């Protein structure tokens, strides 16, 4: 392996200025740094866990598509993960001399603020949307605002403002658009391919040079905390005040952030965010599109990674059940050694996965379902969007020519200590004609597969009943009825 150069500072752009920091705590959050160190207090703390969006800022990073700005939650974004990015806060917004920015003026004129505390976060989310989509639909605005809570307005005024922004100015003339080349050049100059190492002892952070560098480091230091999107580890710090040093930031590593398709199998690098995976997955496996739209809010999807969703082993992660139903496989890597296992076998028990010390999740490989198969995934939550799963069912079905069930894989989240197959239900379906009678008989088998828990998201009784009913929903959807099967906010695109 080629020798990597080492740098002992992080470099990024904050609004208009270059920032170089050689002293950064591994658990320092962007929000605290903005408010306490920089006295930029337009960005607010509402929850410190990535759910309310009052702390929304934009982070611009260089990608295959050039410089891309995405909304993120500054409260759970670690400062050390910002190397080579452009951080944009509400203080950076400006319009014509002496004027507010179009996003801001629209919010003022349409009464989009009442108490005003959530407002800078809304402004930033709308700004991020407007740059990508100057004339968005209701659905697009709502999606962009899933991670922003407002308790005063009831959102109606904010929606009116969001629709009006382009009448106040052109996105193409926005300062961030005008300065695009200049910012790109400055960011490119910062990307020197070096490994970043800051601090020592109990306050140490590392940003590896690339995935090989990461593999070697983790092999040497298997106790390090791996941080990709920090949508989970962020809370270890803000809520549990855990010591996480040494930290290895892998959110933006070359070699870990690619998504590719080969021979009907989509390989997703562990550093790929939900947002980055969305366009490929929703196109190639359309049933995943609506699911991905309901994972976290926009900011969390811009930060959180599919690799993290799998690696943390949660029984309520949203990607493992559909991937298991699709027959996905997982590549784990330790140093230079790799092994690939069925995703299903990765989850051993609550809090325990098939991952050895020094090993990390490198990629997940998801087969695209064949044309004559049926695949669906259903997520049940208390609130439709930006909520954590109470129960989630994924169904993959192949029918034989005679209409009997040739192959079926059903996997659930929220129903057991791990993401889990409904084996007894599958057995009750295999070889039988795909009819409502068969389905009703199979529904009785759920009790053999699952003994769900009662918690704040749902009771055991509800989980059992709703999970069972999802099979009937799947049957109804695959049997070609024209009547509505699910409630939906918008007609399917």
């Amino acid at each position: 392996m080629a020798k990597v150069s080492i740098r002992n500072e992080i470099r990024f752009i904050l609004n208009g200025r270059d920032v170089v920091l050689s002293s950064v705590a591994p658990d320092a959050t962007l929000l605290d740094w903005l408010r306490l160190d920089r006295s930029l207090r337009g960005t607010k703390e509402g929850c410190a866990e990535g759910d309310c969006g009052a702390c929304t800022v934009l982070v611009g990073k260089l990608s295959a598509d050039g410089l891309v700005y995405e909304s993120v939650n500054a409260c759970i974004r670690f400062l050390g993960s910002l190397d080579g990015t452009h951080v944009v806060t509400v203080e950076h917004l400006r319009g014509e001399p002496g004027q507010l920015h179009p996003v801001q003026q629209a919010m003022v004129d349409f009464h989009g603020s009442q108490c005003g505390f959530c407002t800078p976060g809304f402004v930033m989310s709308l700004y991020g949307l407007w740059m990508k989509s100057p004339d968005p639909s209701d659905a697009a605005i709502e999606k962009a605002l899933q991670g922003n809570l407002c308790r005063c307005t009831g959102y109606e005024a904010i929606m009116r403002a969001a629709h009006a922004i382009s009448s106040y100015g052109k996105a193409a003339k926005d300062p961030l658009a005008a300065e695009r080349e200049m910012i790109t050049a400055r960011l490119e100059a910062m990307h020197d391919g070096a490994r970043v190492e800051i601090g020592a002892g109990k306050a140490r952070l590392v940003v590896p040079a690339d995935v090989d560098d990461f593999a070697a480091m983790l092999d040497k230091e298997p106790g390090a905390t791996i941080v990709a999107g920090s949508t989970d580890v962020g809370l270890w710090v803000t809520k549990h005040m855990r010591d996480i040093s040494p930290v290895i930031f892998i959110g933006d590593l070359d070699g870990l952030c690619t998504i590719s398709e080969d021979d009907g199998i989509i390989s997703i690098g562990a550093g790929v965010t939900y947002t980055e995976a969305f366009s490929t997955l929703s196109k190639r496996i359309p049933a995943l599109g609506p699911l991905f739209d309901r994972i976290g809010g926009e900011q969390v999807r811009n930060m959180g990674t599919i690799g993290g969703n799998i690696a943390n082993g949660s029984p309520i992660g949203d990607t493992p059940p559909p991937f298991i139903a699709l027959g996905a496989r997982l590549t784990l890597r330790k140093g230079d050694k790799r092994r690939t296992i069925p995703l299903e076998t990765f989850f051993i028990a609550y809090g325990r996965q098939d991952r050895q010390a020094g090993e990390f999740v490198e990629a997940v490989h998801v087969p695209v379902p064949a044309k004559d198969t049926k695949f669906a995934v259903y997520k049940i939550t208390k609130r439709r969007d930006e909520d954590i799963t109470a129960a989630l069912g994924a169904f993959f079905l192949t029918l034989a020519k005679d209409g009997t069930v040739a192959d079926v894989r059903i996997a659930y989240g929220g129903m057991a200590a791990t993401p889990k197959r409904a084996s007894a239900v599958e057995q009750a379906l295999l070889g039988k004609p795909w009819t409502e009678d068969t389905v009703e008989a199979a529904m009785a088998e759920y009790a053999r597969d699952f003994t769900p828990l009662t918690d704040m998201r749902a009771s055991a009784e509800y989980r059992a009943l709703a999970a069972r009913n999802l099979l009937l929903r799947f049957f109804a959807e695959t049997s070609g009825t024209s009547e509505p099967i699910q409630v939906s906010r918008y007609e399917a695109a």
Partner: protein
Amino acid sequence: MNKHAAPNLKAEKITGGVATDQRHDSAHKHVSGTAIYIDDMPEPAGTLHVGLGLSKVAHGILRSVDLSAVRTAAGVVDVLTYADVPGENDVSPSNMHDDPVLAEGKVQFFGQPIFAVIGETREAARRAARLARIEYEELPAVIGIWDLDPVNDKQVTTPLVLRRGDAATAIAAAPRRIKNRMWLGGQDHFYLEGQVSLAIPGEDDEVIVYCSTQGPSETQHLVAHTLGVPSHAVTVEVRRMGGGFGGKETQANQCAAIAAIAAKKLKRAVKIRLDRDEDMTATGKRHDFVIDYEVGFDDEGNILGVDFTYALRCGFSADLSGPVGDRALFHCDNAYFYPNVLAKSAPLYTNTVSNTAFRGFGGPQGMVGAERVIDEVAFAVGKDPLEIRKLNFYDPMEAIGSRNVTPYHQKVEDCIIQRIVAELEESAGYARRRREISAFNANSRFIKRGLALTPVKFGISFTKTESNQAGALVHVYADGSVHMNHGGTEMGQGLHLKVAQVVAEEFQIDLDRVKITATTTAKVPNTAPTAASSGADLNGMAAQNAARQIRQRLTDFAAEKYQVPVDQVVFLPNRVRIGNQEISFNDLVKQAYIARVQLSAAGFYKTPKIHWDRSKGQGHAFYYYAYGAACAEVSVDTLTGEYVVERADILHDCGRSLNRAIDIGQVEGGFIQGMGWLTTEELWWDDKGRLRTHAPSTYKIPLASDRPKIFNVALTDWSQAYEPTIHRSKAVGEPPLPHGMAVLHALSDAVASVADHKICPRLDAPATPERVLMAIERLKNEVKTGE
């Protein structure tokens, strides 16, 4: 140089007077991040920060509290316990002495503050707080109230009884009777800005506390009480809150007291800002209720007699639970006349956080009980609930007969609910959509639609009579610009803007000549909390009174100086006509100043007419009522209980609105907040008394994507306050919140369709997808077993 354009001396109207649509005075600051909340203020050098140590059991004796590891942790300056409270260790707002600042000897709920770490940084203080070693002797804990006895189990304060006629006899004699109970969940305020205070010690016993509080005077008095100093030593100031909703009426006081005690002890500025999870765990919420009801009615659906018991989970202390329970009873009639009624409250003690004010203050809970009774009657007689509603309304104001007396013996003299409901039925296409939904449901196996139209009548005034007073302070400076201050607080509702509009109107000057300033106890003393929707009613009147005093002095001065009769001094937009000449307002002010006319005035207002005898349960409790109605349509998935709100239409009465743009924002926001309360916002305690929904990850307030797909909000353009309120406007803070009931009842209607509308769904709240599905299952089973 002066950035403001010179006032237009030819204008026909001032800009920004009353009854004009003005945007929020701070809107441009909100959007640019320059509006300063307390945590945004530059801290004085050496400011210290607080981390709280919270109880880990719901009820127990504190056997030992070992804070040695906390004290020696890095960055810790001091650790406060109850022993450090120089005055009384109590912040009870109702003088019950049951609300310790820091727990003393025992803890009574999971999350109760026991000690406060004072650190060089907030992080150091929070981290150190985890190092305490506390031994508890656990005691039996009462968590829920479903199984409690509303009469014999422990109560935190005296219950209320309302009685008119003879309910028991009327129910017994009625052709039909139904008796049942409902569960109604509470609600976290989820103001986006959590509780925060910054205390700066002064000379002698003085301290200034910048506090996110709805009640600066009360915060002042309680801080003084805990410090053991006179109120004059304490100044409390707040420019704005990042949301309040009742959650900062009394709940701000504990943090303010801790900051002030630490600041005085350590002689340094001290800031306390709760983490969201701590805030949700350790501060009070909307009360959850168990409502027992029995109703007697005839075959047409006329209600003949009702008996209610409203049991409320108060938590461990009284706080405002007494008046919250009272207001629930005051609204157990919603908009309906009960010929005979008995209503009792049961403010029950539990080992949970002490519940408190929340927009509506028990009123919405009272109404939900009324609407459940309407549903029961409707299903029993086989009619659309809307028919039963209309049958039982109070007499309209233009045709008052015998059906206009409330359970508390006040006459309803201003009822306009009939007209509002009729107009809304028409504009929302109720009858047509009722038919369309029936047809849809007949042909849809899994998805069922539901429709409901619910009314609201909300009583305006504090039932605590002394709270119905307000003060204001208005200065006119020699250049003609105006400084406006009053006792109300700004939490997003646009109160300062409305009051400024009133002052601009009195002086006939443009709105931008009136400066809005922070609420402070040093300018206006002894004020009521900004609550009970009273902000504009009370403070608008007080500010008007102050402005009128100054205007009178200017009038008298002008009349004398120009030798004209007083009635020839007329205030026109930005100018004054004195006899045959006009001079600018600014010039008149300047002349008055030179002539040594006093250009400052303190204004005052107290609400007339109201009185209330709690022991008798009788009085003229409310100055007037605000009305409105909402119509909602939902789609429900009968396999999972998931739903979407397809459409909502609201018609609401703000009298002659001071500012329609602001009022529509209140109605839209109130509806969504009420909808959240009754649908997805679920507070869930485990059997150890731990609140497990203590953060937005688990506690789900509505999102933009939970709005009704079609959302039409209108204000009545024909109503005006029956009483001489400020410019005949009506209060708007709380009355729109119960419009969320329309969604609960639309869900109920959709659920009922699975049993052909023959069985009352008795859908409890919050109607989460789980409760909806379980109600569907119950009805399906009842149909099956019935066959």
